[in-house]
C-alpha cells in the first residue's frame, strides 16, 4: 500500500511550501543582518540561482521516485515544485537586473548578446516561463498532446543550467560538475 493517500496530500504540500519558502526567509534575515559578506549582491544572486537549480533537480526527481516507490500521488506535487523553481529563477533574474545592473536595460542587452552564460541562462528562464504559463489544468487540457511536447523542454533547461553555472564562475568546476552529474543521472533514469 502506498504511504501517500488523498487525505495526506495537503500535509505533504504544506511541507513543500514551508521547505521552499524557508530559504527565502533565511535570505531575507541574512540581508537584514548584513551577514552576506562584503559583496551581498553576488551572494544574493548566487543563492537564488542555486535555489532554482536545486528545485529544478527536485522537480525532475519526482517522477522517478514515484515510479520506484509506487507512490502515484507523488506526481501531483510536481507542478508545485516546478512552479517554485520558476519563482526562484525569476527572483534570480530580478536580482541580477536590479541589484547588479541597476535596471540598466542597455547594459543588460549588451551582456545578453555578448556573454554565453547569460543567454544560456536566459534560454533556460524562457523555457521555465513557458512551462509556468502553461501549467494550469485548463491550459493543459486545451493544449492536448502539445503540452507534453512543450514540457519536455524542461530537459533542455536542466542541461543548460549547470553549464550556465559553470561559465559564470572564475574557477571551481567541482560544484557545477556535481550538478551536471545529477542531471545526467535523472535524465538517464527516464530511459526505458
Amino acid at each position, binding site marked *: 500500500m502506498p504511504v501517500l493517500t488523498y487525505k495526506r496530500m495537503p500535509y505533504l504540500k504544506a511541507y513543500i511550501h514551508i521547505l521552499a519558502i524557508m530559504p527565502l526567509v533565511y535570505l531575507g534575515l541574512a540581508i537584514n543582518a548584513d551577514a552576506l559578506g*562584503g559583496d551581498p*549582491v553576488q551572494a544574493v544572486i548566487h543563492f537564488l540561482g542555486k535555489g532554482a537549480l536545486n528545485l529544478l533537480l527536485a522537480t525532475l526527481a519526482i517522477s522517478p521516485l514515484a515510479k520506484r516507490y509506487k507512490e502515484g500521488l507523488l506526481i501531483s506535487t510536481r507542478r508545485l515544485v516546478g512552479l517554485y523553481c520558476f519563482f526562484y529563477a525569476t527572483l534570480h533574474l530580478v536580482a541580477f537586473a536590479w541589484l547588479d545592473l*541597476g535596471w540598466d536595460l542597455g547594459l543588460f542587452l549588451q551582456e545578453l548578446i555578448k556573454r554565453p552564460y547569460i543567454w544560456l541562462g536566459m534560454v533556460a528562464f524562457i523555457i521555465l516561463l513557458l512551462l509556468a504559463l502553461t501549467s494550469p489544468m485548463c491550459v493543459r487540457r486545451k493544449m492536448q498532446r502539445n503540452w507534453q511536447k512543450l514540457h519536455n523542454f524542461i530537459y533542455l533547461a536542466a542541461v543548460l543550467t549547470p553549464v550556465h553555472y559553470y561559465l559564470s564562475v*572564475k*574557477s571551481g568546476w567541482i560544484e557545477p560538475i556535481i550538478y551536471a552529474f545529477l542531471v545526467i543521472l535523472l535524465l538517464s533514469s527516464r530511459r526505458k
Partner: protein
Amino acid sequence: MISIWEVNQAGNGMIIKCKKKSQASENDVVAEPVYQQRRQFLKQLGLAGVGLAAASPAQASIFDIFDSGKKKAHSQAFVQSPLKFIGSKDYADGEIWTPEKKVLSHNNFYEFGTAKTDPQKNAQNFKVEPWTLTITGAVEKEITLGYDDLFKVADLEERIYRMRCVEAWSMVIPWIGFSLAEIIKKANPTSKAKYVAFETLYDPQQMPGQASSYLGGNLDWPYVEGLRMDEAMHPLTILSVGTFGKTLAPQNGAPIRLVVPWKYGFKGIKSIVKIHLLEKEPPTTWNRLAAREYGFYANVNPAVDHPRWSQASERRIGNGSVFSSKRIKTLAFNGYDEEVASLYQGMDLKRYI
C-alpha cells in the same frame, strides 16, 4: 643562500636591523636543510602542530562535535598590531573607503578556500611569525628577511588605492607599505633581471585550500605571480604590510603582499615568501590555468572584456547595503593611466592582456 647575518656583516649599508640572537627563531640559526628535515620529522610524528596553529576550522570533521569546547579555544581571531607610518597619500581621488569589515570579509585567497568568506573563516590561526622572505636570482646580493625585518626595509607609508578585481568588483583600500623598488634596489639586480617572480607560502597544513582541491579551486600551488622589471620598479607598485593602521590580517595576505593598483587584483600576490629576479617571463598561476582569460599583464582595461563577462563597469563595494550597490564605469589602468600608460607604449593591449 646568504642569511641576514652575513648581509649585515658585509657592511653594505642595509638598514635592515639584525635580530638579537635571543629573538632569532630556529630557522634563522639552523641551516635551512636541517630546519626542513626537522620540520619533516615533526610532521611525520604528527606533531607539526608544535609551534604552529592547530587544525583549522576547514579541516573540522564530524568528530569535532565531541570537542567543540576545545575547538573554540583555537578559533580566536588573529591579532593585528597597530602599525606606525609616515605620511598618507590618497591615490583614489577622495573616493569613499571600503569599510574595513568588508575588506576583511570579502577575499579571494584560494589557499584558504574559494568562497569569498572562506579566507576570514579559515585563516585566523595562520602563523606569520617566524616568517622568511628571500630575494634571489639575478641579483648581486641575495637578501633574507625575517618577520621583524619586513617592517624595516624602508619608511612605511599609507597609500590609498583603488583595487579592481578581475571579477568586476572593486574597493578603495588604505594600504601601508613601501615601494617594491626599495627592496629590489638593495639586492642590486644584475643586467639579466628582466622580470620579477613572486611566490606565496606553500604550507597545506596551514592553508586548507592547498590540501584540498575542492576547497582550493584546483589551482597549482604555490601561487606564483610576476611583473616586468619596469612595472616592479614603478613607484606605485608596493609591498604592503598593513591596512587601516594595523598589520595585515591573514585573509588580506599577512605578513607581506604585493599591491599593483593598475592591474587586476589577482596580480597582488599574498603572503609572499620568495621574490626571484629572472630573465624570462615567469609562468604565473592564473595565466597557466586559463591564458585566454587571465593575461600576464592583467592591466585593468575597460575596452578588453573577459571572455565570459564585461570589464566595462564594476560593482563598487562601499558603505551601502545590498539595495544601494553602485555600478561605476571602469577606468583605463584603473584610473592610473597618467602614471603608468607610458610603460606600455607601442604595445597592443588587446593582445597583451
